[in-house]
């Protein structure tokens, strides 16, 4: 009997429970033992009560890279500060979105989820996300003025708010100093030259690519042929988009879209400046086989770790306007089966805490914040890459707010790859893509 009690005590008392075990104190009297067990029970009850006061929330995100470790550290700090525990589930973004779509209607969703801006419209229209009213937003201390417009607007769908932006993954131009130097493309200060136009980019890239097994320019991290985010960026620079302004019909086959597709087709085929469609551009850049590289801001901490000599410059204007593709991460509250006020408040507390500590996130994870407050932090403005990223803020643009955006993007991927590899002429491919996008069901 006593063994069983000890076993139970050991269980409820957590790590300290075994201290009262008779095995360690063989000569303890029965009275003392009962008293000790009672005290331990009270202590365990008190701990449970505290734990009940501070709930544990579930939080799903796709931060599978180095940024995940940073998030873990910050969450530990948040738990120490607030007493609120967070159970994270981390899986690749695409899987995360499929899981949210399945789990939330079944009442198995998380208390908090981090998603990309372009996912907001379809999750909102499918009733996966809880709408956030203005009164709550204001009461929790979130104001539109504190944010850059593209990020704040990205959290809404059909005039209703569904999310709050955290940070702004975006494109930037990386220049490999060694490769550029070898091609004689550095200024008097020894820093790589930045192309000012599309023609200049192609000329410079050709010069770099004249060295065997070296590529002048690439856009995209892995698989540049099918890098839709890069293709979107170029479309936006040319004033084009996937959908027309009414968000009903596809606009990719219009002249501005075709011009971008022609450039896409010429990168490897005609100009011979870009790596093959499925190349790993990050590895090529690190290996000193790629000179100019437009890619996500999430790459730069890895480049530093790999000790590559590089500079980062704001995106050049390759078409009509120097628009920069951005994809803010958004905090969302998936709908719960039964409203749990305590958990929702705890989730809000975490969003508030992260927003207040976003400078740490920026410095360690390398993502600049959506809120303006951290932008003047001297530690951030003192970093040349973060400074370049921040300087692009007025040019940020996000995907169109239609529930079909992500599906249209998935359709775009193989089509632009076929253009890149020369399997399909640009015009026919864009017309085919427009047809496919228009055939998506409502």
């Amino acid at each position: 009997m006593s063994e069983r009690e000890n076993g139970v005590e050991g269980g409820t008392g957590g790590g300290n429970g075994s201290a009262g075990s008779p095995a360690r104190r063989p000569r303890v009297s029965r009275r003392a033992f009962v008293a000790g067990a009672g005290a331990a029970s009270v202590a365990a009850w008190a701990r449970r009560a505290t734990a009940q006061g501070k709930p544990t929330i579930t939080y799903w995100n796709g931060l599978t890279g180095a940024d995940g470790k940073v998030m873990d550290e910050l969450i530990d700090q948040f738990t120490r500060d607030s007493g609120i525990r967070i159970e994270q589930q981390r899986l690749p973004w695409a899987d995360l979105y499929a899981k949210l779509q399945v789990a939330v209607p079944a009442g198995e969703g998380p208390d908090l989820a981090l998603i990309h801006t372009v996912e907001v419209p379809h999750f909102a229209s499918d009733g996966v996300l809880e709408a956030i009213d203005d009164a709550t937003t204001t009461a929790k201390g979130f104001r539109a003025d504190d944010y850059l417009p593209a990020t704040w607007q990205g959290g809404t769908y059909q005039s209703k708010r569904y999310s709050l932006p955290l940070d702004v993954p975006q494109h930037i131009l990386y220049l490999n100093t060694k490769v550029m130097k070898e091609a004689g493309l550095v200024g008097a200060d020894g820093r790589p030259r930045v192309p000012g136009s599309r023609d200049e980019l192609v000329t410079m890239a050709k010069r770099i690519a004249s060295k065997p097994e070296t590529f002048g320019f690439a856009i995209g991290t892995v698989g540049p042929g099918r890098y839709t985010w890069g293709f979107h960026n170029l479309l936006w620079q040319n004033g084009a988009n996937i959908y027309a302004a009414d968000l009903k019909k596809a606009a990719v086959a219009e002249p501005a879209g075709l011009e971008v597709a022609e450039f896409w087709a010429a990168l490897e085929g005609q100009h011979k400046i870009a790596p093959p469609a499925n190349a790993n551009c990050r590895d090529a850049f690190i290996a000193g086989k790629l000179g100019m590289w437009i890619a996500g801001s999430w790459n730069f901490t890895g480049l530093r770790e790999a000790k590559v000599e590089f500079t980062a410059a704001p995106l050049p204007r390759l078409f009509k306007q120097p628009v920069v593709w951005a994809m803010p991460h958004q905090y969302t509250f998936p709908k719960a089966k039964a409203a749990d006020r305590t958990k929702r408040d705890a989730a809000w507390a975490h969003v508030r805490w992260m927003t207040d500590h976003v400078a740490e996130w920026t410095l360690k994870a390398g993502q600049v914040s959506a809120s303006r407050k951290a932008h003047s932090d001297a530690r951030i403005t003192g970093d040349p890459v973060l400074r370049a990223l921040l300087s692009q803020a007025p040019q940020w643009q996000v995907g169109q707010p239609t529930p079909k955006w992500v599906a249209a993007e998935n359709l775009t991927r193989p089509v632009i790859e076929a253009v890149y590899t020369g399997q399909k002429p640009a015009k026919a491919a864009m017309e085919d893509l427009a047809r496919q996008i228009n055939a998506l069901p409502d």
Partner: protein
Amino acid sequence: MTRQTRVAYAFLAPGLLLFAAYRLYPLLEGLRLSFTNARLGRPLQQWVGLANYTRLLEDTRFHVSLWNTALYTVASTLPILAVPLALALALNRGRLKNLLRSVFFFPFTLSVVTVGLAWLWLLDPVVGPFNYYLRALGAPARSWLADPHTAMAAIILTTVWWVTGYYLVIYLAGLQDIPRELYEAAALDGASGPRAFVAVTLPLLRPVLLFVVVTHVIGSFQLFGQVFVLTNGGPGDATRTVVQHLYETAFQNFFQFGAASAMAWVLFAVILIFSLVQFRLLRGHTEY
């Protein structure tokens, strides 16, 4: 019903219940969904009759996927039959049989993602060792997986490397089952190596060959993992398979469960037809 039958059913019940819950019900629910416009997350769904099936007739990407899948199935069957068999024959009498069998089996213990990522790197056009050695030998390097003419061949090569060990073990077991006396009798009749292989080994391996072909063909029609990791169906749609098309329709392009279910049932019908044909062709005089 006799007591004995009742007892038998009682013992079968747990298995049958699990089969009904996890196989039969999803199968029939999929069939029902294929006649609706169901979308995951949308509570309302309408009966659309055969619309999802007729849409497949116009879906050129589905046709391409079906063609690619058939191409893969046909093109990969011969190497999958021949390579492990050749190795099995070589290993059957060898002294290092057990060691080499383990060595060849090792790749099959890896998950498809691990195999895919390893080959993705091996075949990488810029930093991959495969091209590095080609260049060193003076041969032109190419981007195997980004070239529509070689991408499918690269996927087949990867798959053969991956599954050879598995089929090798099956062939070895089949070879061990052939009585030695038959070879001795063949030798007395003057049949040497190749003749004995054709007259003794192949006919007696028939059940094993049938098993290999049928399981491989069914697996081929469901090809997904290697393609997903190595090419994601690319370049363009050059290696896109039916299951990938189905997966994307269901889980990426707007969660169209109705349309995806229709594809799954078409695929089911195709596999069924192929399997029946194979059984008919290879049944012959096989004794089980």
